[in-house]
């Protein structure tokens, strides 16, 4: 099976690469649309800033390309947020795959610090990506913006208020958390994605 990681200036490409290798898969890391098209699975990673990254995706012709993908796609963290309609980070229009907007966390209490950083639980899990055994399991988050719970939500997490920990629409999957940094639980989720 060919797995490709969309290459752009995302901070966690190396971590995703390593995590897949630990599962016995050596991914192709490329921004070449022809190469990406041939892959069975595509991962759209992301650590960075929404506005700059969207500009890059438009410049490279990757925005329309990602929207048109037919194989299973997994967006991670910023990757997930960019698959939404619009982000408050840089007030930028995104890919519009998920019908949801990305908002900034507004703390209600002092101990609710932003970014939301650390291990938190998956709740209300659904779909082939997240099986029932993952309910209540801890995964690793680092983010200041979130996607509200919406029709595409396949897992929620509570921080300040419930938000979307994962999304799915058709062949598009996405996680706000970092499966590549979530220990054995994260490995199970990546494994699920690889077997979809």
């Amino acid at each position, binding site marked *: 099976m060919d797995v490709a990681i969309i290459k752009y200036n995302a901070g966690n490409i190396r971590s995703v690469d390593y995590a897949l290798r630990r599962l016995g898969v050596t991914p192709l890391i490329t921004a070449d649309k022809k190469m990406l098209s041939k892959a069975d699975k595509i991962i759209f990673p992301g650590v960075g800033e929404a506005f700059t990254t969207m500009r890059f995706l438009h410049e490279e012709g990757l925005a329309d390309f990602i929207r048109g993908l037919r194989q299973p796609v997994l967006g991670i963290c910023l990757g997930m947020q960019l698959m939404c309609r619009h982000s408050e980070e840089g007030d930028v229009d995104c890919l519009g795959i998920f019908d949801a907007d990305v908002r900034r966390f507004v703390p209600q209490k002092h101990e609710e*610090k932003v970014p*939301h950083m650390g291990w938190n639980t998956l*709740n209300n899990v659904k779909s082939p990506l997240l099986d029932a055994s993952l309910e209540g399991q801890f995964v690793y988050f680092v983010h200041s913006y979130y996607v509200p719970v919406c029709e595409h939500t396949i897992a929620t997490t509570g921080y300040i208020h419930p938000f979307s920990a994962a999304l799915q629409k058709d062949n598009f999957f996405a996680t706000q958390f970092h499966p590549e940094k979530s220990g054995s639980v994260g490995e199970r989720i990546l494994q699920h994605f690889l077997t979809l």
Partner: protein
Amino acid sequence: MKNEEFSLAKRIIPCLDIKDGKTVKGVNFVNFRDAGDPVELGAAYSRAGADELVYLDITASHEGRKTFTELVRQVAAHISIPFTVGGGIHELQDVDRLLNAGADKVSINSAAIRNPKLIDEIAGHFGSQVCVVAIDANQENEDWICYLNGGRIPTDKQLFSWAREAADRGAGEILFTSMTHDGVKTGYANEALARLSDELPIPIIASGGAGQMEHFRDAFVQGKADAALAASVFHFGEIKIDELKLYLQREGINVRL
């Protein structure tokens, strides 16, 4: 839908000092192939339930630095939890090199005191979440004085104002080591920790003073810390991370199990 409470877990972080690619502090693990191997040790901590790891490069030489970068690559390749690296970071290029090697965060200490703008630069280029500002401070009369070079050189900076400045400049977390408590094993500097936590909008990592499991509970409850770091109690097996987390859970603290 399930009613979710505030469920972000308190973090337990073992710290490994590295010299020339090897763990420095004596390590007293049984059933361990190579206690000096930082990757093996980190993996063991990860299996035991550590939430993050810190690797601190205490090598001074240029050669040692290259060895450390290679080690960071190995850690990233083998360990599936987040890790922070520190030591020998003076400029943006160092940060870039270490993040490229696979580190999730960098910790800066003396370099930030000497050149506070480095915090703005790291936050601006890579985001606040990668920028941990480590502060070594000693309680002297009523004041907490910040120190340089691993606690050898006093500065004119005070803990609370410097931590505030670091947060304002874009630090993502403060790692506060109390030199007063470090090595004494009578607990963390909970009063100072609580004040940092109350005053700052970013997570606080407690460091220095852990000797018993109760000390971790106190750092979270009295000290309001978001994470607690320790070295020797873990390395010497005096406290096992899996047992510590079960203890903390029994004490009503939200930890990842």
